[in-house]
């Protein structure tokens, strides 16, 4: 399959010892920044270490383009004290490209919201120039800064320096993975909670599950400040935390009128009123808006369109969705709404969130089969069993509609209904006492 008689591994005559890269050269033109140009610059102008690695790396990559096959295999590489966080790569064509025969990646957790000073970025560059290939990706699909291209020997030194700079390895393998959060309240008025605090609180309390992988399979957290879900949490996270609010959307009616005056009545009806998923908005005759907040699902659309006139309410918090993942093994899944609303303001609120996250991960560790994501575990045992284990009462917000299948045993229905009415009465009582 991987024959060794290609000519593309041999250095080009007259051009010192650089591998020819005819396929990659094709990707240097065009208006978008070229990664090939960057790789070549490391080969030609990088530190001595970078030059060596990058010449052979370019050779191997060009070889892949020619053969239409990848030539990396995994293995085991780690740093002292940790079991995960390094993605080992050993070349299968090391005979032709020996200097990049080990091309491991260090996954490093970024600050929530991906904020950097130029100073810290420069320090990262300096470290990676000394110990690695000089190639860094901001960021991988799990959110890690990926320091790509390091020999087994240099891995420990590179990590030590990054660690001393204030950064830690991320997750890999069957473990807690690096999390992501949107820019959130650092710069966005639509943010409904402190995403970065939630992110740091949960991940830093579960770090052991990241650094010493022992879960049945991967487990991912993602934090989005509102239903726009800028970090794609519902699709991609086992545990998605999405900002929302309970009270009314805030309307500045003067700004609404300005908006209508600017874009027109028809355009406002077409793009705001008619696009509301629950038909909760109407435009009044005086060009102000009327919103039926009890029908509103906090989808964010009207707020996205009228950024000056509309904003989330004041009684903010989060929804939590569990079980999102891609196809392997039983098919795609999105997170299921299991906590429709949770307040997230006080220290106690954050402690509650942390405790819930720990309970969910513990449920996963105890109940998932090998290589099973928690969404699959929940599918296997049924959502009611998961809710019972987590001590969460059932809520109509968890379903699109009640079951349509009659294959269920309901002889304790009255007791379950009594619990519902008791809970409703308690909530009503609490509301009265709060007022």
């Amino acid at each position, binding site marked *: 399959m991987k024959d060794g008689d290609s000519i593309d591994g041999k250095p080009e005559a007259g051009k010192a010892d650089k591998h020819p890269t005819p*396929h*990659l050269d094709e*990707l240097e033109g*065009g*208006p*978008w*920044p070229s*990664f090939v140009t*960057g790789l070549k610059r*490391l080969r030609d102008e990088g530190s001595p270490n970078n030059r060596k690695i990058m010449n052979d790396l370019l050779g191997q*990559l060009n070889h*892949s*383009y020619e053969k*239409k*096959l*990848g030539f*990396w295999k*995994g293995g085991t*590489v780690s740093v*002292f*004290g*940790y079991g995960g966080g390094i*993605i080992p790569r050993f070349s299968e064509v090391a005979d032709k490209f020996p200097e990049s025969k080990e091309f491991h990646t260090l996954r490093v*957790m970024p600050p929530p919201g*991906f*904020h*950097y*000073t*130029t100073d810290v*970025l*420069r320090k990262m560059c300096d470290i990676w120039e000394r110990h690695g290939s*000089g190639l*860094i990706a*901001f960021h991988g*699909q799990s959110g890690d800064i990926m320091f790509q291209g390091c020999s087994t020997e240099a891995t420990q030194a590179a990590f*030590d320096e990054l660690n001393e700079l*204030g950064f830690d390895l991320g997750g890999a393998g069957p473990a807690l993975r690096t999390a992501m959060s949107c820019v959130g*309240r*650092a710069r966005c*008025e639509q943010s409904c909670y402190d995403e*970065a605090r939630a*992110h*740091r609180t949960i991940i830093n309390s579960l770090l052991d599950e990241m*650094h010493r992988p022992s879960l049945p399979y991967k487990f991912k957290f993602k934090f989005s400040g509102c239903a*726009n*879900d800028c970090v*794609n949490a*519902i*699709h991609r996270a086992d545990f998605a935390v*999405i900002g929302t609010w309970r009270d009314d959307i805030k309307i500045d009616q003067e700004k609404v009128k300005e908006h209508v005056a600017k874009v027109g009545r028809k355009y406002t009806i077409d*793009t705001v009123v008619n*696009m*509301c998923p629950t038909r909760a908005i109407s435009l009044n005759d005086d060009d102000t808006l009327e919103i039926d907040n009890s029908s509103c699902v906090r*989808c*964010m659309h009207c707020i996205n369109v009228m950024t000056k006139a509309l*904003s989330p309410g004041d009684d903010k918090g989060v929804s939590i969705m569990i079980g999102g993942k*891609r*196809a392997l093994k039983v*098919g795609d899944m999105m997170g299921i709404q299991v906590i429709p609303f949770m307040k997230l303001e006080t220290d106690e609120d954050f402690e509650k969130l942390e405790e819930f996250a720990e309970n969910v991960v513990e449920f996963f560790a105890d109940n998932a089969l*090998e290589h099973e994501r928690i969404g699959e575990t929940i599918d296997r045992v049924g959502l009611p069993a998961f809710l019972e284990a987590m001590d969460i009462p059932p809520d109509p917000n968890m379903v699109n509609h009640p079951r349509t299948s009659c294959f269920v045993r309901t002889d304790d229905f009255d007791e379950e209904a009594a619990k519902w009415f008791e809970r409703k009465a308690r909530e009503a009582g609490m509301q009265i006492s709060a007022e």
Partner: protein
Amino acid sequence: MEQQANATPRMPDEIGVPDHFQYMHPVLKKNHGNWAWHERPRAGVLRHVSKSGDEIFTVRAGTQRQMDVFTIRKLCDIGDEYGDGYVRFTTRSNIEFLVKDEAKVAPLIEKLESEGFPVGGTGASISMVSHTQGWLHCDIPGTDASGVVKGLMDMLHKEFVQEKMPNRLRITTSCCQINCGGQGDIAVNVQYTKPPKINHDLVANVCERPAVVARCPVAAIRPALVDGKPSLEVDEKKCVCCGACYPPCPPMQINGEESTKIAIWVGGKHSSARSKPTFHKLAVANLPNNAPHWPEVKEVVGRIVEAYKSDAKHWERMGEWIERIGWKRFFEMTNLAFTKHHIDTWTGARKTMNTSAHVRF
């Protein structure tokens, strides 16, 4: 734990997720949680206004994601000169410069463009393609990532630097069917077309056979003795060519120069704005994995982008547009074939069928 030769190895400082405030622009820090509204003065620029009256301009530029230290340092130089020494990245690998002083916005844009970094990716644009690793670094890739992305973004550059789409259009790529690139309005994903080719000399030593058997979604793999060697065999009639067996068992090679193909999917959406989030759906399969330019893939993506751009209403995402016009019209407008392979056969398939009298003519 191969390299522990040192007598006293350094124990890691288990820092975890670092504190973001130390790297945050002072205006963002000061107005944390106190922002009032935002607007987009032009493509690639956001203006956020705080309840305190402070404001901050954000200038967004595209990068190649896989960046050499020279490129990063150049971006840092630009950040120092125009952006107070602070930057951030978006989830789609765009870099954002934060600018307090409005007068610096135009010169920053000019500088970025002159250095080859396109300014845009905001609002109703086509932002950077979400990116996987491909031949550069992955151990199981069917194609490259950076090259496909470079080709697509060269073609779509003009839609990155302006906001002329009906709504945002998010493209993803994935080099195998694990789909690390995720769901997208348009997803360009490897689709294998042949069962794995097994090297029976290696299976027993390399693969944990029961784990590989368990990994198969259609139970097509079973332990077998082949030429007297303990190995695995695949029931090729059952095999759906997903490649799930390949990562835990590299001797089950799923990739082939000809058999690794590209499929394009449409209508995935992460956000809950308007409609609920959706998965992407198959538009076309069996496009060739034609490096280094992938012209057949680019041509189809271009056609889908044009159809959406010409026909969708403002704020409709790809999937919402198709929902309105119907799949029949989508296949007509894009001149793509609807085949038996578009009809789902997996668990839950019945929920994807039309069980109504609604028909489009």
